[in-house]
């Protein structure tokens, strides 16, 4: 039900569990006859993929959905879209239960899960035109406009079987744009795309985010991209949410990092001076190329005191620049250095 409680939430997952057994096959059963008995009597061991997955996404936000290989990202998205059944828990899109009201929940949802699929025997244009049978507001002009927006207008009469992976991704995004959804779920939207295509896709996601009430949940292994477009991130590991929050807040630290470059002959004097200051947490000598510089860990809001103290001590500053913590660094911290990527 679309309750008042859920009115401000675009996507909700509550205590979702999902496990997979080995796929059933007669060949396998012949090899392992006891498996049949185990399957029949319900004592068959399954691999848990999602364990108590819970998170909420506010309407109108752009959320990055991150996790290492095999963390359960694609499975989570499939469960949310009711493409696969979950063992337990509840998922809601725009307040509608995706299991019992999935026709309502999918009414305003555009989703790309894993690689985009199309009817290969049709042209790109026809693959979009076919959706006009269901979504009445779609016109031929709107299709042309959408194809122009993703840069596929010149290829619209080619069969989809002749499209590259990147072109398919763009065509799928064109299809989603046509549907005018309120929630967009994108699983690895830039996979198989060249850098230009990735930048274009990033721009499209950014422009979608600017179109009012649209919520975008995007799973990607390109953390830089997520950092560029997302307001929030959800990081999952081994089927559990390990972090959820606003990107700016997550990257915020108790101290600030700065790089300081001074005259090479003054670098040790500068290091000793700053080490004695109460607002300095740590000083480290480092090299950038052949240029020595100091890496400073400074207490919050105390950075302005560094130039003052150095000038007072007659030390010339060549460069003093704040170093922001990247999403990648944060991701590696919370996932213990696990690699990102699509689940196998």
């Amino acid at each position, binding site marked *: 039900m679309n309750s008042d409680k859920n009115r401000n939430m675009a996507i909700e997952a509550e205590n979702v569990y999902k496990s997979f057994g080995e796929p059933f096959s007669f060949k396998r059963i012949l090899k392992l006859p006891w498996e049949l008995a185990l399957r029949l009597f319900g004592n068959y061991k399954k691999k848990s993929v999602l364990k108590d997955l819970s998170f909420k996404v506010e309407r109108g936000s752009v959320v990055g959905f991150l996790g290492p290989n095999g963390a359960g990202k694609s499975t989570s998205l499939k469960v949310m879209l009711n493409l696969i059944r979950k063992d337990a828990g509840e998922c809601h899109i725009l307040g509608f239960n995706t299991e019992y009201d999935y026709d309502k929940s999918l009414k305003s949802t555009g989703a790309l899960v894993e690689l985009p699929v199309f009817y290969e*025997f049709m042209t790109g244009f026809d693959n979009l035109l076919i959706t006009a049978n*269901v979504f009445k507001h779609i016109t031929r002009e709107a299709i042309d406009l959408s194809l122009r927006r993703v840069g596929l207008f010149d290829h619209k009469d080619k069969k989809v079987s002749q499209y590259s992976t990147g072109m398919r991704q763009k065509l799928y995004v064109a299809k989603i744009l046509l549907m005018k959804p309120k929630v967009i779920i994108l699983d690895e939207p830039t996979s198989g795309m060249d850098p230009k295509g990735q930048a274009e896709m990033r721009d499209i996601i950014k422009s979608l985010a600017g179109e009012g009430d649209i919520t975008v949940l995007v799973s990607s292994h390109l953390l830089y991209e997520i950092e560029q477009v997302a307001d929030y991130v959800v990081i999952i590991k081994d089927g559990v949410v390990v972090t959820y929050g606003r990107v700016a807040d997550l990257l915020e630290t108790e101290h600030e990092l700065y790089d300081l470059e001074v005259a090479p002959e003054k670098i040790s004097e500068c290091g000793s001076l700053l080490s004695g200051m109460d607002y300095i947490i740590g000083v480290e000598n480092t090299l950038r190329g052949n240029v020595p510089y100091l890496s400073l860990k400074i207490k919050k809001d105390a950075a302005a005191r560094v130039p003052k103290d150095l000038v007072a001590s007659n030390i010339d500053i060549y460069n003093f620049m704040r170093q922001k913590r990247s999403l990648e660094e944060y991701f590696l911290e919370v996932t213990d250095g696990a690699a990102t990527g699509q689940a196998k």
Partner: protein
Amino acid sequence: MFDLVRYEVFKMRRLKKVYFCAFAINFFPLMILFVLTVLFFKGMLYGWVGISQQMFQDEFGQGIMGSIVVMLSFFSWASWFFQTIIAGELISKEFENKSIKLMLLMPFRRLTIYMAKLVSTMLFFAFNMLIYLSLTAVIGVALDRIFGLNVFQLIDYPLLGKLCNAYFVVNVSYISLVFLISIFAKSSETTMAFSIFATFALKAIDSVIMLFGKLNIIPIELSNFLNKYAYLKSCEIINTEKLLEVMKTNDYTKLPISFDMLGVNILYSLLFLMTGYLIFKRKEEKG
């Protein structure tokens, strides 16, 4: 659901196999109808196979109506054979290449998607039947004008409607079985192969039950009961023996449509469709 049926029809219109199947369903029975009618009526085959015009009329009835009845039956089987390809394309192949995801991500219930596929396949059958009957009429006129066979007037149109209706119901049961098979099969070709196999297997089961009854392995009453309500038997909603009698007398108003068989046939259709739907509903999109 109407929107989804239109969606499916759009897809079928872009599929080359659909045109091939439509051509095959209509062309082959019509060619046989045309050639046989002309050859037999002109007695051209008399010298070849020893069948006279009189013998043909005794066997198939006088006029084109007899031929239409026979050929409608042939058409029904041709439709069944080629519609397995369509069902395979709409279900098996979509699961195989994952394009089913396009429909599963639309705001429709699984039942609506399943029914839309069924309805569009039935529309394909109805469309073919319409073409077939229209072409038959054209051939009837051609026979009259070219060969002087004034047989077209013998067609009893209300009876023809009754026949088409009966074959339509039988076709629903064929398609429901094929749909059930196509949910398991991985390609349209496998669907066709398994559908043919299933038909022969069901026929074999019928024969085995009859044989067991005759050999007293199972009670003859049970054998008769099972045989009467066997799937393939229920598809014979027009009693063949009585049909031949009717053809001899040329009184088609007494065409023996077996309504109890029609009932059994509808029950089989429902059983296949419900089983197929339950599996379709639980079939997960494989990652």
